[in-house]
């Protein structure tokens, strides 16, 4: 609750800041919104904020006081949620304070940092990703807008601020050099290249110019391939330090995610910038501070980068038309596209090669024409080289800690943006290298294709799921292009808005482009996916899918306008972006929940020292989570819900967009719908946050779907997704008759319960639903759920609503007898039984069981077990083990010299299932197995019958540990079960 509340309150403020940022003044604007939020969020962290500012300004930032202040403030939103959310987290971190201080001679305020860290740790579980992300993006925006004009004064300081998060964690010496560099006025010496200023600087300065030459795709990539190692290695050296000094528990998770995403993005930026060099006066420094900035942002939530593509702040960013930032957008699609190439080599048809080859060409020829607006297109061309950079960097990694993280980090990246994995590296390199070749050889009509057409083709291929599709797609593309060439529209037609459906022949590819291709790539083992509980439902509810595209459309609302206006937009970009961008966001909370919370706990033992084992450990843990999270995220339905949740944070932004920019009247219908839909979501979302008018929230459902999955509400219930009573009744029947497993039923019943609750239905149906659920829970041995239902049932029965009161009275009596072992409770529950109740068969049975248990009469117990009415035996099931053990202990102590196992099997209910002779023998085997497992000593007599040697057994009996026992106590909480269960 707390968490949710926090994020919700902060989010509007965040978007406020976005609004304000429209006035370009970077640092000033940054501070103000956050101070604003300070006020609203309470004093607890206000103090922190002040501390931070003081410390930072005092120690580090004298050269550029205002800028650090902003960087500082950046951290504060996190702080707020951390401190006001849970104290635990903050405490954990404060525990490390001495550690940090010692390693940080500068005396940077540890609190600030710890909070910073715990801040996002906090927020991840609460699924408030968009929020922190927004915050970080926001700060990013003004900086780069500074850079655009080419104001050098700004750059170093900004990178400095971004750097700082990383710097704090690294050694102080490093920092000092960094700053001395800066103050020395060595702008070219750059912020990133602190440790190896000369080499990297040299590389970079050369780089842009290499790039600059039109044909330099080759040189560029090669140069890039050589330079980054230095630079990035260094970078990683920072990272371990960073993590080791700070909160390692979250580090494994963070490390992996941000690292991967950052690569893919920061590099494109670099590339983009280099391409822009001529435009921006060719200032190498500017461009290279950017990648660094990205790097230093890594400590932020894992989803940060992907979120950047989605988050509203970026939209705002677009308004500034910052070429550097724009570079983000094309990257995901590009990666996407390339990954197709790599994962499926067959895809590399000549056509493809040609296609890609045209890109550089395009760039070079066109860049002079469209400078800024092209920004987000250009990076696409550079991505190949960029990727090589990334790849080479990865290979060069030396730090074992990081290296151990990397493989999985890359697999993750495979999943989430389907970019190249470490194993795929060679392919990647070769691809980028062969680009120029393709450019020269396999280009029948180089440069004659309009850029947008290339994009179109690329999009079309990006949607192809398999080779067959690709082939057909290729054929139809050929046809379209030929036609267009023939009638001369190839250069005039707006390929950006050309519907892809003309190319892709199946409907499926049209409706599912957002989820299907990616999800198939995401899952390491696609076979696992059908197992997912969500799967069948997705299929059964096709209507959701359009909705998902709507909502993603809304997300990119601002961007869309921009694109449309500029005629540069491409729907596929948008969509692919939405998919690639949004997925990490949503999946991250899931994985983060585990990976972040658990390590925190562990940290108490390890004392904050980072050890490789830990990181790799959680790595292993995370990977399955992640993949399952992915499969969840990939389902369109799930995404829709998550979208609508995340929409809360973009609400204000969306409004401002609508105000500032005229709505595109001719935007396609879907987008319009999306906007309207978004507004609806906004309204309901905000209401849930601000004023809890429960009467107003008592909705009357209109949903007619019988099947509905359970999702814990995080906003006001939407009547269109709530089922009215009659439908719920049908749903209950459906669940009762369903042949599916308990997890499914539990989920369905939970959603029915939720619908009942939000509609405040309290009648026989409520009782029925809870009774049904309780019975299923008993059947499955899910005592937690059973208890929940029972406590609700008690309330319902107390209200005088009819139900199977006696049946559940018997259950409750049995439960107390067998599981709670509380005499007082037992007494009070027995004294509550009325005279009539005691006549009921089930209740009488329960009372007899109780008597048998208290006296230890195992014979009676197992007889009662066989004759149990209703589900009484289910509750008794859970006590059988104890009772058997007790009985054998009694007997081995009391009986001499032996007891036949056959007798035990009969008395202890092993041969209980039926009276057939066969079963009896089965009971024998089972019984002797059981006895052996419990340390009994068995002997055979002259007839060959098994006997229990009581004297020997009396000392050797023991209660074995349950085989499925797990450390955290809930064996159901398996890695893979986790997502299907919650």
């Amino acid at each position, binding site marked *: 609750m707390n968490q949710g509340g926090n994020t919700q309150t902060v989010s509007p403020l965040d978007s406020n800041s976005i609004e304000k940022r429209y006035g370009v003044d970077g640092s000033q604007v940054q501070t103000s919104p956050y101070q604003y939020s300070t006020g609203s969020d309470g004093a607890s962290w206000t103090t922190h904020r002040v501390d931070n500012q003081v410390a930072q300004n005092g120690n580090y930032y004298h050269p550029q006081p205002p800028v650090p202040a902003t960087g500082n403030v950046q951290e504060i939103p996190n702080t707020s949620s951390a401190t006001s959310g849970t104290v635990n987290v903050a405490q954990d971190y404060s525990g490390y304070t001495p550690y940090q201080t010692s390693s940080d001679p500068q005396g940077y305020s540890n609190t600030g940092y710890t909070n910073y860290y715990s801040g996002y740790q906090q927020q991840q579980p609460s699924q408030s990703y968009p929020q922190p992300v927004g915050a970080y993006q926001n700060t990013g925006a003004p900086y780069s807008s500074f850079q655009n004009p080419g104001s050098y004064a700004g750059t170093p300081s900004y990178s400095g601020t971004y750097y700082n998060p990383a710097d704090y964690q690294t050694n102080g010496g490093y920092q000092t050099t960094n700053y001395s560099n800066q103050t020395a006025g060595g702008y070219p010496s750059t912020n990133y290249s602190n440790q190896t200023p000369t080499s990297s600087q040299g590389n970079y300065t050369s780089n842009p110019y290499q790039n600059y030459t039109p044909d330099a795709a080759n040189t560029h990539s090669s140069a890039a391939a050589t330079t980054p190692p230095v630079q990035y290695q260094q970078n990683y050296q920072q990272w371990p330090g960073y993590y080791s000094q700070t909160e390692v528990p979250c580090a494994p998770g963070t490390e992996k995610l941000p690292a991967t995403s950052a690569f893919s993005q920061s590099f494109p930026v670099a590339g983009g910038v280099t391409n822009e060099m001529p435009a921006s006066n060719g200032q190498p420094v500017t461009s290279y501070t950017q990648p660094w900035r990205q790097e230093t942002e890594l400590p932020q939530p894992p989803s940060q980068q992907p979120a950047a593509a989605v988050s509203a702040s970026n939209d705002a960013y677009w308004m500034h038309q910052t070429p550097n930032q724009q570079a983000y957008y094309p990257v995901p699609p590009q990666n996407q596209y390339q990954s197709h190439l790599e994962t499926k080599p067959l895809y590399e048809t000549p056509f493809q090669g040609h296609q890609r080859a045209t890109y550089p060409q395009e760039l070079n020829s066109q860049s002079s024409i469209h400078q800024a607006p092209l920004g987000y297109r250009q990076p696409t061309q550079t991505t190949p080289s960029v990727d090589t950079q990334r790849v080479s960097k990865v290979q060069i990694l030396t730090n074992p800690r990081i290296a151990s993280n990397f493989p999985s980090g890359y697999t993750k990246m495979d999943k989430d943006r389907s970019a190249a994995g470490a194993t795929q590296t060679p392919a990647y390199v070769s691809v980028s290298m062969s680009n120029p070749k393709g450019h020269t050889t396999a280009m029948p009509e180089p440069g004659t294709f309009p850029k947008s057409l290339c994009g179109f083709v690329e999009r079309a291929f990006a949607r192809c799921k398999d080779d067959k599709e690709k082939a057909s797609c290729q054929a139809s593309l050929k046809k379209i292009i030929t036609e267009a060439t023939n009638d001369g529209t190839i250069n005039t037609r707006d390929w950006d808005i050309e519907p892809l459906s003309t190319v892709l022949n199946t409907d499926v590819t049209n409706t599912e482009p957002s989820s299907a291709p990616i999800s198939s790539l995401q899952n390491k083992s696609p076979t696992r996916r059908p197992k997912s509980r969500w799967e069948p439902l997705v299929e059964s509810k096709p209507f959701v899918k359009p909705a998902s595209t709507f909502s993603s459309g809304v997300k990119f609302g601002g961007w869309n306008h921009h694109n449309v206006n500029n005629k540069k937009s491409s729907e596929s970009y948008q969509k692919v972006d939405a998919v690639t961008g949004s997925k990490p966001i949503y999946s991250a909370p899931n994985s983060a929940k585990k990976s972040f919370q658990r390590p925190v706990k562990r940290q108490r033992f390890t004392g904050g020292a980072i050890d490789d084992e830990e990181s790799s450990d959680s790595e292993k843990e995370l990977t399955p989570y992640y993949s399952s999270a992915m499969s969840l995220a990939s389902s369109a339905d799930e995404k829709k819900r998550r979208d609508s949740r995340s929409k809360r944070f973009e609400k204000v932004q969306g409004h401002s967009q609508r105000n500032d920019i005229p709505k595109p009247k001719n935007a396609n219908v879907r987008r319009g719908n999306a906007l309207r839909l978004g507004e609806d979501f906004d309204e309901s979302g905000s209401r849930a946050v601000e004023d809890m008018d429960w009467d107003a929230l008592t909705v009357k459902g209109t949903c007619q779907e019988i099947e509905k999955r359970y999702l814990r509400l995080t906003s006001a219930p939407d009547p269109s997704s709530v089922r009215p009573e009659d439908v719920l009744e049908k749903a209950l029947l459906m669940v009762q008759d369903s042949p599916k497993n308990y997890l499914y039923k539990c989920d369905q019943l939970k959603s029915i319960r939720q619908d009942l609750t939000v509609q405040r239905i309290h009648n026989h149906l409520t009782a029925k639903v809870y009774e049904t659920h309780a019975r299923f829970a008993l059947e499955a041995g899910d005592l937690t759920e059973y208890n929940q239902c029972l406590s609700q049932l008690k309330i319902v029965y107390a209200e005088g609503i009819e139900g199977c009161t006696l049946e559940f009275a018997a259950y409750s009596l049995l439960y107390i007898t067998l599981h709670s072992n509380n*005499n*007082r409770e*037992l*007494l*009070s529950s*027995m*004294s509550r039984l009325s005279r009539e109740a005691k006549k009921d068969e089930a209740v009488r049975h329960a009372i007899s069981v109780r*008597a048998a248990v*208290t*006296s*230890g*009469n*195992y*014979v*009676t117990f197992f007889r009662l077990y066989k004759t149990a009415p209703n589900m009484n035996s289910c509750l008794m099931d859970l006590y059988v083990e104890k009772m058997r053990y007790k*009985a054998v*202990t*009694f*007997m081995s*102590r*009391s*009986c*001499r*010299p*032996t*007891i*036949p196992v056959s*007798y035990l099997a009969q*008395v202890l209910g092993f041969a209980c299932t039926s009276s057939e002779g066969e079963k009896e023998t089965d009971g024998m085997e089972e019984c002797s197995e059981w006895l052996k497992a419990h340390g009994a000593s068995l002997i055979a007599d002259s007839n060959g019958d098994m006997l229990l040697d009581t004297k020997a057994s009396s000392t050797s009996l023991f209660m074995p540990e349950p085989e499925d026992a797990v450390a955290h106590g809930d064996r159901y909480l398996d890695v893979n079960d986790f997502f299907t269960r919650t």
Partner: protein
Amino acid sequence: MAYVSMGEAHRRITEYLNRFCDAVSDQDSLTLCRLLSFSSNSPPLLSLADALNVFQDASSLIGKSDKFSEYGEILAHLFRSLQSYRVGNLVEAYLAFDKFANAFVQEFRNWESAWALEALYVVCYEIRILAEKADKELTSNGKSPEKLKAAGSLLMKVFGVLAGKGPKRVGALYVTCQLFKTYFKLGTVNLCRSVIRSIETARIFDFEEFPTRDKVTYMYYTGRLEVFNENFPAADTKLSYALQYCDPKKERNIRMILKYLIPVKLSIGIIPKDELLQKYNLHEYINIVQALRKGDLRLLRHALQEHEDRFLRSGVYLVLEKLELQVYQRLMKKIYIIQKLSDPARAHQLKLEVIAKALRWLEIDMDLDEVECIMTILIYKNLVKGYLAHKSKVVVLSKQDPFPKLNGKPVGS
């Protein structure tokens, strides 16, 4: 209600105010107690309540004099509570009394000496009684009763005031007992634990220095708690202490203690004399004791069934039910003795058949498996010495002391 003139009302109120202030300034605890004791329904208080209902503006009267206004807050709430109490609005009365009690405790805290302890006791007692009454009223109106719970937290606050060092410490046990009563009534006995801990671990004050009255009450309640936990030796100690120090004239209190002490004693093998049960009117135990003496399982079961509700409510049902094993023991002993008379050489062999037959005579139908199970348990719990030969369905008794007495130890120890 007799008509009270305005002047008369004014006089009565002024008189009360004077007496209150005098009592405080004279540190006259007894008078103060009398002035605060609502539930005594003393005529002066009732007439004051009538007067208050006539003379509505009592607060202005308090404000008139500096002497009164010093305790203005205490008195104003007290008056309002009394007024509501008189007209039967118990919830209102409780609410006002709660405010009064808070103000009084605040004032009490400022008084250096513990002279007003008695008055504080009265306040504690009154608030509990008033809360119970208010809850009754709430329940009858269909609302959830919660005032006793609130009274519990107020009492906890008072306990905090007293539990420190100093002369006021003596009063802590009284408040503890009031808390026990509250918690037992509420069914939240687990809340007693913290209070008990602070009483029992305190080194600065010897338990014996508390007033006997409070000690007995305290021991009674903690003994009951031990009964719930089936910690019979501890329960025995505490309840015996309570019985020993309880005023012999307070038969009701002795009966209350015995209600728990008897089951505890039975559980550790000590059977009371019939006279005791007769004297304190504990008829429900007569048959149970009889059953234990005779080994009559049927009688025990009947007795338990007969008084089931009572035993369940008092919380001794489970304890008494466990006496069954002792009854079995007695039954086996009887069979053994009879066998010894007829055939001393083979007396130590109890056939399960024989036992089953004996039980049948008691109209308890058991097959051999069940009998064997019972015998197993008896041997395991050391109520019977010997072993059970499964093959021949015979219990072979130890030649020496086959049925050991419990001798003050619980079964199975």
